[in-house]
C-alpha cells in the first residue's frame, strides 16, 4: 500500500492531524453553517426522554490567549451513563447499560457570544486503572481554526468534592493550582441544573490538557 512499510512487525504511522478550520460547521454541524442537508443531525442533546439520571446543562466559553472568546470552536463530549457505564463493548463493568444513552454529543459555540451548551445527564463514577474509582467526569475534545491537533480535557463537578479529592487523574496533576481548571461550577437557573465550564486555551488560568 502507498507509503506503508510492511514487515513482520508492520507498524504504520498515524495519519497527521490538521486544523479543523473556520468552516468545520459545514461538515459537522451544517445547520450552524446556515443550511439543511442531512435528515438526521448529530447534536448537543445527549439525553432522551427515557434516559436515566439527573438532567444537567453544561455551558461555557472557550477563550484564547488574549481572553477573547473563541467563536468558531467545535466541542465533543464523551461520558458514561448515570450508573457509570460507557455504551461501548470494552466497558465490562457489571453495571446497567442505558440503551437510550449513547454518551456522545457535539456543540458549536455561538458565533456572537461564544457560548456552547450540552443537554445531558450527570455521569456516575467509572472504575479507573488498578480498580481505583474515578470521580464523575465528562471527556471533552476541542477543535477550531488555529488548533492544529484536537485538545483533550476532562470536566469534573464542583459538588463532588470528596470524589474529586480521590480521583486518580486529578491527583496526577502535580501542580495543585491547575486542578481547579477542570472543575465545573454548579448552579441552578429556574430549576435547571447548570454546570459552567470555561476553557482557557492559553494564559495564567490555562486549562489542563491531556495527551491521552
Amino acid at each position, binding site marked *: 500500500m502507498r507509503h506503508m512499510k510492511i514487515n513482520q512487525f508492520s507498524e504504520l504511522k498515524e495519519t497527521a492531524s*490538521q486544523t479543523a478550520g473556520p468552516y468545520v460547521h459545514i461538515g459537522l454541524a451544517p445547520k450552524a453553517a446556515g443550511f439543511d442537508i442531512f435528515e438526521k443531525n448529530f447534536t448537543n442533546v445527549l439525553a432522551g426522554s427515557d434516559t436515566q439520571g439527573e438532567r444537567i446543562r453544561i455551558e461555557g466559553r472557550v477563550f484564547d490567549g488574549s481572553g477573547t472568546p473563541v467563536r468558531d470552536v467545535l466541542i465533543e463530549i464523551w461520558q458514561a451513563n448515570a450508573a457509570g457505564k460507557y*455504551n461501548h463493548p470494552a466497558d465490562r463493568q457489571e453495571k446497567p447499560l442505558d440503551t437510550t444513552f449513547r454518551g456522545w454529543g457535539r456543540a458549536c459555540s455561538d458565533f456572537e457570544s461564544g457560548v456552547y451548551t450540552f443537554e445531558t445527564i450527570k455521569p456516575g463514577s467509572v472504575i*479507573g486503572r*488498578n480498580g481505583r474509582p474515578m470521580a464523575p467526569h465528562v471527556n471533552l475534545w476541542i477543535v477550531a481554526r*488555529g*488548533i*492544529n491537533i484536537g485538545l483533550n480535557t476532562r470536566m469534573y463537578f464542583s459538588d463532588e468534592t470528596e470524589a474529586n479529592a480521590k480521583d486518580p487523574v486529578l491527583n496526577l496533576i502535580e501542580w495543585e493550582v491547575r486542578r481547579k481548571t477542570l472543575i465545573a461550577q454548579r448552579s441552578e437557573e429556574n430549576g435547571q441544573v447548570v454546570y459552567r465550564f470555561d476553557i482557557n486555551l492559553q494564559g495564567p488560568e490555562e486549562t489542563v490538557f491531556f495527551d*491521552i
Partner: protein
Amino acid sequence: MPGLLDQFGEFMQRDRSVHPDAYTPGYKTSVLRSPRNALISLQNSLSEITGPQFSPDELGPLDNDLIMNYAKDGLPIGERIVVHGYVLDELGRPVPNALVEVWQANAGGRYRHKKDQYIAPIDPNFGGCGRMLTDQNGYYFYRTIKPGPYPWRNRINDWRPAHIHYAISGDGWAQRLVTQLYFEGDPLIAQCPILQSIDNEEAVRGLIAQLDRSAFIQLDSLAYRFDIVLRGRRATLFENRVQGGGK
C-alpha cells in the same frame, strides 16, 4: 480469550512527531490558540479506550454522494471525482464501522458557510458535506466535485491548496482525529503554512491523495485513493495486574 482482550486493549502512545505542534507561528491563528503548558500524559482508562458507536440507520442514502445530496435543479459544476480508501490502525488492522465525515469548498473554492465572504460564487447545487461508515474491511468511498484552491488572510496572499476536510471517529475516544486531504501534484502544497505546520515529510505525504486510475469510471469520474491510519490498540497480555509506580 486473547482475541477479545486484544480487541479492547489500550491504545499505543501517540507519536507526536508525525503531528503538527500546537504553536506554529507561520499559521498565525495558532499563536493565541495554543497551550503554553505541556500536555499531561494520561495512561488509558475506560474513558479513553471506549468511544461513541454509530449505526447505518442514522445516515441517509445520499450522505456519501456530494454530487447529488444538495442538487436542487441540476448537477453541481466541476470535476467529478470518487474518493476511496481504507481506515486502518497502526498495526494494519481494518477499523470497521468508523464514522468518516468530510466537508469542502465547491469547484471555485467557495464554502457554503455564512462566514465565507470570498468573491467566487456559491454553486446552488452543491452543499459540500458528506459522511459514511467504513465497512468490515475498513473501506469507505464517496463521490464529489474536486474543490478549488482558496485565498485566506494569513499572510496577505496565502492560498490553500485544494483540500477536503476529514473528521474520523474510530472505535475509541483516543483515536478521534481531524485532518485534511490534498491532491497529488498540486503545486500549492509546498507553500501552505497549514501543511508546513507538520515537520515530518513522510507525514505530509500521507495527507496527499493519489490519482487512482484503476478506480476511474469511464466517461464519468476520476478517482483518488486516500487511506487513513488511526492509533492501534496494544495487546493486553496480562490483565488487571498490579502496576509499579502507579498512584
